[in-house]
């Protein structure tokens, strides 16, 4: 049970009665009346156990978006329900309104809609539904909580989606270019056509020329059906926040843009999230469903506070990558982690595959490196220069070992990684 503000208000109103009569009997009478009304309220309030709840509504929402969940309350009891109903979610689910008041006649039903604007990724579970059923006087109510399960999956926001149209048009331009005579190891034979002045003489197909009696060249179409394996490092280095958001989330954004782009370009995309074990895995999904599958798989990934096992990562990558692939590894250029983890295993990966490494750079370090106002800032600048130098050195070592490195701040990483992919595709080096 619980009282309402009216009980206290009734006691305050009782003071007026006592002022008029000024006897002890008035005090007794006032309080007896309040107690009786409370008892009647508790007795006559509609029982919460007789309520039936059903939920409908959104099951997924992008981070930053708003989902709506309806809660339907059916009153199977015999008394009128006058109640406050609270649909409780975690604070970060951003649920509103906090509670609603409703009147449901016996046998009737009512609904409340909760808007959720989650502030964090992951699965948001409905906690409990609490009902405060008031009695006829509204002085006291019965309160009970019931579990009405519902889960909303909050997907990564994919803010770099706005770059997608530009990258797709770049891709189409690439397509047109490819009809010309560029040729790479991954490009495929398209057709034979007559030689026109300006064509590369190296693309003349002499056998066809002999057969036709006319100078004929081969054309190539851009490579399709290449395999791309996205590797997302969820180890300790992904937990650090750059401009307020964890590196992991910035990396996810880049993975999503690249996945969207590569599926449109006709490549097959697989996805692995890994630290010491596989955290998420999307392998062999049908092309139209890949982006949704990757988004869905990423929703639940959180940074783990362990050192990424680079050896295990390399072996999982090699077993997952079927045939020649482009391996896109999203990690941090942390000197210790790279030198002792990834670097010794890189040759394993680069022998058959092309490796593209994406890393989230921290603009705060650049700001520190520019500090000159006081001696303290210059000391910070020296530390920042040291860190940047290390990062450059690691990046150079990786590139020397055959990997391509994209090191960019969160806002630019998705675009630059997509550009690197388009560059590889244009050069036919996938």
């Amino acid at each position: 049970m619980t009282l309402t503000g009216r009980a206290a208000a009734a006691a305050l109103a009782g003071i007026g009665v006592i002022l008029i009569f000024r006897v002890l009997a008035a005090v007794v009478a006032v309080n007896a009346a309040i107690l009786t009304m409370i008892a009647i309220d508790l007795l006559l309030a509609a029982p919460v156990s007789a309520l039936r709840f059903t939920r409908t509504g959104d099951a997924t929402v992008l981070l930053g978006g708003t989902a709506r969940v309806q809660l339907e309350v059916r009153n199977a009891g015999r008394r009128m329900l006058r109640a406050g109903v609270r649909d409780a979610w975690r604070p970060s689910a951003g649920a509103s309104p906090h509670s609603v008041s409703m009147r449901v006649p016996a046998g009737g039903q009512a609904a409340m809609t909760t808007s959720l604007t989650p502030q964090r990724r992951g699965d948001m579970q409905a906690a409990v539904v609490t009902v405060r059923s008031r009695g006829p006087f509204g002085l006291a109510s019965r309160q009970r909580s019931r579990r009405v399960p519902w889960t909303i999956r909050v997907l990564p926001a994919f803010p770099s989606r706005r770059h997608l149209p530009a990258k797709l048009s770049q891709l189409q331009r690439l397509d047109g270019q490819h009809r010309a005579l560029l040729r790479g190891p991954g490009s495929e034979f398209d057709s034979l056509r007559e030689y026109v002045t300006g064509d590369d003489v190296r693309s003349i197909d002499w056998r066809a020329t002999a057969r036709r009696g006319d100078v004929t060249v081969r054309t190539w179409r851009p490579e399709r059906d290449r395999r791309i394996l996205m590797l997302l490092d969820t180890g300790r280095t992904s937990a650090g926040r750059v401009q307020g958001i964890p590196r992991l989330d910035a990396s996810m954004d880049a993975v999503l843009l690249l996945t969207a782009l590569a599926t449109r370009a006709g490549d097959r995309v697989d996805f692995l999230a890994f630290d010491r074990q596989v955290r998420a895995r999307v392998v062999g999904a049908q092309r139209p469903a890949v982006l949704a599958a990757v988004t869905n798989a990423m929703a639940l990934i959180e940074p783990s506070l362990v050192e990424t096992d680079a050896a295990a990562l390399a072996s999982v990558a090699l077993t997952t990558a079927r045939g020649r692939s482009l391996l896109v590894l999203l990690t941090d250029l942390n000197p210790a982690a790279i030198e002792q983890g990834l670097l010794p295993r890189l040759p394993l990966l680069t022998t058959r595959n092309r490796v593209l490494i994406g890393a989230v750079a921290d603009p705060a370090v650049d700001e520190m490196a520019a500090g000159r106002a006081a001696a303290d800032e210059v000391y910070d600048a020296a530390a920042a220069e040291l860190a940047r130098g290390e990062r450059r050195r690691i990046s150079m070592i990786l590139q020397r070992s055959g990997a391509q490195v994209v090191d960019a701040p969160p806002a630019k990483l998705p675009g630059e990684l997509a550009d690197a992919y388009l560059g590889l595709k244009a050069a036919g080096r996938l």
Partner: protein
Amino acid sequence: MIGAPTTPHARRSPPTESSSGRVHLWRTWRGPLLVIAVVLLGSALVAFLQRSPAVTGPLDPRSTAPSGAHAIVDLLAARGQAVSRVDTAAAAVTQARGSSAVIVITDSAYLPDTALAALRHSPGNLLLIAPDAAALAELAPHIALAGPAGLRPVAAGCSLPAARLAGPVVLGGELLRPDAPGGWLCYPWRSPGSAGQPPVSLARYASGGRIITVLGTGAPFTNLYLAQQGDAALALNLLSTGHRIIWLVRPPGALPVPAGSPASSQSLIPPAATWIALELAIAVLLAAAWRIRRFGPLVAEPIPVPVRASETVRGHGRLYRERRARARAAVVLRQAVLARILPRLGLPYDAVPDTICQELAARTQRDESAIRAILFGSPPAGDAGLVALAGALDTLEGQVLTQ
């Protein structure tokens, strides 16, 4: 990089520094503390600047209020009559010993019976101003109260020189009726149609070797009426019965004691107040019961610990600061600049200093030795030197990169 349990989400948490907890605490509380300090200082200042509130009983020699007696006391002092202000009867009696004193009792209502008895036996003349019945019975038993009257100018109507010389005086307040003949009775209040002895405002008689004067109102002594009619004259004349004037005023905070039995504080509370307090308490309890129960259980939230990715770099910077590692910082800054300008100069990373300096001197038209001092010189001597070196490096880099 420091690992910490963080959960990625889009909430932009402000970056926290573990070492600056105290700073954070200070920042949180300095506002309220400042407000409290200002309020305390301000009130202290006001308290100091304000003159201590005058103990402003009516007819107090210190009081400059309309009901005070500051003006008459000033006049007395100018005439050479010493006025000593006392606020207990015992003090008045003590001071009255000796020659020709007059005790002015301004407010007899608060005086307990013992004080009245002491005054009765004290030496010196008495001037009773607007006495109550108890004081009259003790100090001037021949005189009784005869009801109140409004203030207005009254003629002396007697042969007492003090009154006669003063002329009409604004009087009123309590009227007096002597029940025995003798002495002077001045300022009669004649009402048409009434016969016999009219009530008066001033009575003076001698008893036991002292002159006892009773005045029905303090008006002639107050600052307000002193300048009106003959009030000042009357007041001064009445006080001329002694050289030393002992001015007995109401003690600070004294309440007039009611005539009846002393009342307990509880008897002052109306009976309904107890019931109302009880009902208020019940209302408070009901309100507490209303607010005490939460609308459903608390929902737990796993809170991520935000760690800045740049935390290690910042820590490194703080270490440099701590140790004042100028030499190390200078080396790092120089190497960073070299790493950026060498590709621009078309020189390999392992180029020797001589080559680099010559090339730079040629490009920037600067003195080669100056360039050498910037890029390969000795470590800076102080923090200022380090800042200057950083600036010089920036300038050099800018000259190369903008070419």
